[in-house]
């Protein structure tokens, strides 16, 4: 049986918001599910997130945003990923995301949106199936 590559995930907290309970929970849950997860901590700029994603060669970028600034931040990230030729990264967004903003996030190229109170198993299953399709 071929060895299945381990999925690498970057959990990123952009902007000034310091509420990282969700980011830390998802980091622990994805690790338990067998992923390699990098959580570099708070106050990451979009530039820094792209740089870390490149250096760490991750498959997935998970943005955790509770400040309400998810639309401008996601837009900036998607643009910079495209410019860096990193369109193949699977981008998911979690946090305090009102339902009405989900279509706008998806149209920016965000693959999955997981508002607060999403179940760990849904996030794990989504990443497993979408990374497989997109990259592996």
């Amino acid at each position, binding site marked *: 049986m071929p060895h299945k590559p381990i999925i690498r995930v970057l959990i990123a907290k952009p902007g000034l918001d310091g*509420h*990282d309970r969700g980011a*830390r*929970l998802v980091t622990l849950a994805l690790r338990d599910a067998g992923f390699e997860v990098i*959580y570099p901590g708070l106050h990451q700029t979009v530039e820094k997130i792209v740089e870390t994603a490149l250096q760490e060669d991750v498959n997935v970028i998970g943005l955790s945003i509770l*400040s*309400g*600034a998810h639309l401008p931040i996601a837009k900036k990230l998607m643009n910079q990923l495209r410019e860096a030729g990193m369109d193949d990264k699977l981008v998911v967004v979690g946090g305090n995301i009102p339902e009405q903003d989900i279509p706008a996030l998806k149209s920016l190229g965000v693959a999955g949106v997981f508002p607060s109170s999403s179940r*760990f198993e849904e996030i794990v299953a989504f990443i497993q199936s979408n990374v497989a399709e997109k990259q592996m």
Partner: protein
Amino acid sequence: MADKIREVVLESGIPVKPVYGPEDLGAIDLDHDIGKPGEFPFTRGIHPFMYRQRPFTMRQYAGFGMPHETNQRFKFLIENGQNALNVAFDLPTQMGLDSGDPLAEGEVGRVGMAVDTLADMEVAFAGIPLDQISVSLTINAVAAPIMAMYFVVAEKQGVPLNQVRGTAQNDILKEYIGRGAWIFPVEPAVRLIGDTIEFCARHAPKYYPVSVCGYHIRESGAHPVQEIAYAYAIAKEYIKRGLERGLGIDDFAGQISFNLDIYGNFFEQIAKFRAARRLWARIMKDEFGAQSPSTMMMKMIAGGGGGGLTIEQPENNIVRGAYYALISALSGTQTMALCSYDEAYTIPTEKAALISLRTMQILIEEMGIGDTVDPLGGSYYVESLTSEFEKRIAAEIKRVDEEWGGIVEAVSAGIVQGEVARQAYRFERGVQDGSIPKVGVNRFRMEEESRDVALHSYDPKQAEESIRRTAEVVAGRDADAVQSALEKVRVAAKDGQNTMPALIEAVRAYATIGEITKTLKEVFGEYAEQVKL
């Protein structure tokens, strides 16, 4: 054969028996451990008559957009019977950034009001008599300059410094554990708190320079024992800093208060507060040699937290809020700040804030909650649980000191943060697998449920307005006076002098929060987060 009874273990890890009786009071000394309200060790409350004499203060957290909008919300709340204020600042202000800073993009006025200069604080408190309304400033990393602004605004209203009342949150150690609005490395950040404690003890003795926030530690996922233990380890550290300045324990420690959280099991919360009061009294008396009863009293604000609210079936949060208020009153709080039902989504709308205010008013006005003091005192269950809590909190504080090298070391190295995150994870797993019941989430869930909540709207134009306002202020000020004041801030920070007089001079000259923070950063550097998961 009888049916097997369900096992109950509280979030704090304490097992609960199905029935409690006199045998559970066995090890409790009624005089030494419980006593009377208003007397050491204050288990039953810090005042002899509590709400019969002074009802709890209602202090809803409020602030958004520009200072004039926040000013209107303040007036709305005061007109509706709120008798104290609790100011929310936006994230750029909390991080010491002016509204025009590139890092502030998209954040100006979003989760609180934007304050760049003294002019903003003047607008926020226009027409609000600061000699009558006590104000809590929810600000931490830049608490020292924001307190300086508040003092100058009060002075301009004719309230002298030695009469100024109010509180600053000003608890930076909890920011590294939860909430994350930090700027400077741990040691200089704690030193700034020492400056504010010393300054207030000497010049503003009625002001509470620090409100230690177990609240945010619990909101980050700590269980109730950890919440109090880490808050107390932090408070003890600040007290040591005050003593190092040559202050006597009774000269300042009574002016340090606590902001604590309520969500979760009803009796667990009540026992937590009763135990916390008793333990604090003993720490102050036995470890610090306090003589004044006021120093030994644990003074608190607690009214409920967002941590227990659910996005699912949001109206259920109105009910949760009412129970939180009840817990808070049964716990003998001095002040309530009740979360609003829409806070699982956003900052509160006016309507949601009003429902919270009415919830507290109904409790005290209609329900007779304040008719007698500590009505649960003497309950076999509550007293037994209170004692168990006291033991466990004391053991956890010992762990911080003896195993982790003290709270400053434990926070700098990310140890407390990791501990809290792992507890949050255990709890969330329990909610997700249904072993921890949550109505609307894993019990009585509705497939087609309503999430139709009116949201507080955000106006991106606010940033432009704030930038324009600040540019006007900057153009109209005496540039030399600003430079000279900032230079004094730099020298004070560098030479280890108390920075407060220089900060007061700088804000009086309308230096911006960004200029002040930059000056301090040049001396102190910036914090590099240590993530240990």
